[in-house]
């Protein structure tokens, strides 16, 4: 994930268009903060201690990825929703760009 974030930041075309966030399902703010420092995570991480977000998104197993388009009119659309990590950050980024049509 750190590699993915860096690849986005290094791309002039993408850095203002793609944002990355992480959600710690069931984790307290302390645990999320510890995780962020321990793994030097450069993008924002959020605590979902009471699992309220986790419940809304369907109690998925982790890690789970969503790609969400935010349109100019404020509407949004999920274009990617999949369980499991990825091996190659650049390939994953290409897939995100392709599927989102950004």
């Amino acid at each position, binding site marked *: 994930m750190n590699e993915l974030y860096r690849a986005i930041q290094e791309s002039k075309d993408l850095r203002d268009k793609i944002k990355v966030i992480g959600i710690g399902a069931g984790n307290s703010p302390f645990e999320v903060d510890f*995780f962020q420092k321990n793994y030097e995570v450069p993008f924002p*991480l959020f605590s979902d201690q009471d699992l309220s977000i986790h419940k809304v998104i369907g109690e998925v197993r982790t890690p789970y990825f969503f790609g969400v388009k935010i349109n100019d009119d404020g509407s949004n659309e999920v274009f990617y929703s999949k369980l499991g990590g990825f091996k190659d950050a650049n390939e994953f980024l290409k897939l995100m760009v392709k599927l989102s049509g950004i």
Partner: protein
Amino acid sequence: MLRIKYVFVICVVGFLAAFVWLSTVHGRSAAYKDNIYPVGKLKPRDSVPKLKVGERAPEFTLAAMGGGEISLKQYRGKKNVVISFVPAAWTPVCSDQWPGYNIAKNYFDQNDAILLGITVDNIPTLYAWTNQMCMGGGTLWFPVLSDFYPHGAVADKYGVLRSDGVSERALFVIDKKGIIRYIDVHDINTRPRLEVLVGELEKLGK
């Protein structure tokens, strides 16, 4: 067609599942696939306390995964000891709790503490379970002990053996003199917060 303003890539993770991405309360990591037995909601606590803070921790010697035996007394005068009883291998919550401690080693080191993980399972079961826990690579840094035979004897001594033969989800913090400084017999259905344990460890040095 609407113009796209932004794209968000959202990664949902749980504290310390095997992918080294954060995990959670219900064996939520995909690393376990379908191997976590769904126990459902259990009675939060099903044992009668036998110990109190300030008392001497009962001695025990148990077989360790990886060979040999570990006794509580070997840490006397050397290390603070955290005992983490978890109900059983291949059950929810436990399958997230220990991976969490595994990446939080620094907090134990900083407070001169060792962690002993104990379940009522036998060694082969613990071996298979912890291997799956660490399938993202690496191993657990702390000893995992088997309280299998006589069944749950140590859990019983500590007052955390439930009526169905598994242990409570319980934490005991024992100082270098062998005195119990903190007890948390937790709701078996939920994972104790890391910060509470860290807070208790930090009190030991003061």
